[in-house]
């Protein structure tokens, strides 16, 4: 590592991990800049959770060089632990305590002191909209409330680096949006966030940089915009009322791809106003009636297909199938 370059908050080089003869991580390199959101994107079984467990000192890598906040995770795990907060995929709350008692437990373990702890707890309950339920047992909490409490517990000690392993998996759309809002607010406060997700739009919405993990390898990395630029997925979609109009338009526009069943014509293009105007003018001159027009901009779904050569759903070996078409 060169000395005059800014040291990334999280850096990992050539990380390997196997369970038995099953290779989960096969030489992963990552660098996360201070104060940004980094998303590790991949389907179930890609190795995302294993990567988070290694970065957050829960398990040791078989090989590789990993630093978090300038500390080596293998030789100085306690220094790393003092900096980080982790919200795992599975609820890490004490079910026998109330929400407030859970936060109190975290404040005590972070050695916050009585007054400072109480202030922090009140502030977090308020911020996560849990004040009303603070003294209720967790059995009365909804899934979204538990997830918010889980994250609030992670934040008690003001961690500089936060790991979120699939923070919105299993949440309803509304809770999911709330969680996104919370994550965005965190990063404006200067925190560095490393999140994993199997939702392509989530990475697109939140992340400054995205790495695509597939079978334990990083197959693509960049900003969401950079990744999208790598694939020619953008097109204009024209919907026709009758087959004659579709065929007329298809012969007129050379690159267009007709779909006879749905009476749809896909015209490659980036959706710029100039290209749209040109297209509409041509259609106007030949008096072809278009019933409906829509613009499809490339999304990370297209990226995944382009970089791995297979659709995301093919990989989700172990669990739910709905996963990735968001």
């Amino acid at each position, binding site marked *: 590592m060169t000395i005059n370059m800014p040291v990334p908050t999280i850096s990992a080089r050539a990380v390997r991990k196997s369970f038995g003869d099953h290779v989960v991580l096969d030489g992963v390199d990552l660098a996360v800049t201070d104060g940004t959101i980094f998303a590790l994107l991949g389907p179930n079984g890609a190795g995302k959770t294993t990567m988070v467990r290694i970065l957050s000192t829960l398990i040791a890598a078989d090989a590789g060089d990993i630093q978090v906040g300038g500390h080596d995770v293998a030789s100085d795990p*306690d220094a790393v632990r003092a900096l980080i907060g982790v919200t*795992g995929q*599975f609820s890490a*709350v*004490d079910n026998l305590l109330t929400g407030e008692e859970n936060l109190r437990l975290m404040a005590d*373990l972070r050695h916050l002191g009585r007054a400072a702890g109480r202030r922090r707890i009140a502030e977090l309950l308020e911020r996560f909209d849990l004040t009303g339920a603070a003294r209720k047992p967790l059995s009365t909490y909804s899934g979204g409330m538990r997830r918010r409490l889980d994250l609030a517990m992670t934040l008690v000690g003001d961690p500089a680096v936060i790991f979120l392993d699939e923070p919105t998996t299993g949440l309803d759309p509304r809770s999911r949006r709330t969680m996104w809002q919370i994550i965005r607010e965190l990063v404006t406060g200067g925190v560095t966030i490393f999140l994993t997700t199997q939702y392509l739009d989530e990475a697109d919405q939140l992340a400054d940089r995205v790495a695509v993990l597939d079978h334990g390898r990083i197959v693509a990395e960049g900003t969401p915009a950079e990744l999208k630029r790598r694939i020619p997925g953008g097109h204009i979609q024209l919907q026709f009322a009758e087959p004659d109009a579709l065929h007329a338009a298809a012969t007129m526009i050379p690159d267009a791809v007709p779909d006879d069943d749905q009476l749809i014509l896909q015209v490659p293009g980036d959706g710029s106003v100039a290209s749209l105007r040109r297209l509409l003018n041509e259609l106007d001159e030949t008096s072809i009636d278009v019933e409906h027009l829509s613009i499809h901009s490339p999304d990370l779904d297209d990226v995944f297909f382009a970089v791995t050569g297979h659709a995301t759903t093919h990989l989700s070996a172990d669990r739910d199938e709905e996963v990735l078409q968001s």
Partner: protein
Amino acid sequence: MTSVAYTLTDSATMLRRNLKHQLRYPSLTLMLAGFPIVFLLLFVFVFGGQLGTGLGGHGAGGRGAYLTYVVPGILIITVASAALGTAISVATDMTGGIIDRFRTMAISRGAVLTGHVIGSLLQTLAVLVLVLGVALALGFRSHASALAWLAAAGMLTLFAFALIWLSTALGLAAKSVETASNTPMFLTLLPFLSSAFVATATMPAGLRQFAEYQPFTPITQTIRGLLTGGAIGTQAIAAIAWSVGIALASYLWAVRLYNRRRAATPS
């Protein structure tokens, strides 16, 4: 590195957490107390009249004499029964998500187990007081000196400490809470194969030898000697040796199990 002060603070925090669990869900504590109380009632009222006449040396015989004979044994079975709770609460923690949270925090490594062990020890002492209260209500009387009572309390605490560490290790070794509630069951069976309920001299040869050399007999005999009179002799040394040995071996086993990071399932 965490200082000694932080180790104490963290252990106290974990102890508070465990005591809060016990207070909020008293059914486990009541179940742990219920088992020895049922045995006390059963053995005194159902079997006591018959068993008491066989005691011979212990005064006039009969139900009253058997009550005096069996209470030390009941106290020992209380300790064994209460230790079951430790395995259950440790396994509940280890199979839940919160243990991973603790492991990613800069907290003293031993604090989680220390909290469980001290919490269980306090729970056991509370259950012992409850069981002893029932025994006194049934007419159990002791002429032991305050010093003898103190020594008996110390012996019971030491033995409880040993069984709680053993139960902690069993809770850590269990893959599920269900397993953890079954594996320490042998601890409640062993008192029956000791001098807790009947004198070992009445047992057939092979069983008698087993009964005389397993830890529950010297510990029962020590408590019996302290509370109701009778020779203790080398039994006290055997009792202390067994307790310290079990505590030490179980402690080392438990810490090893705890530090061995659970093999994570691939994501």
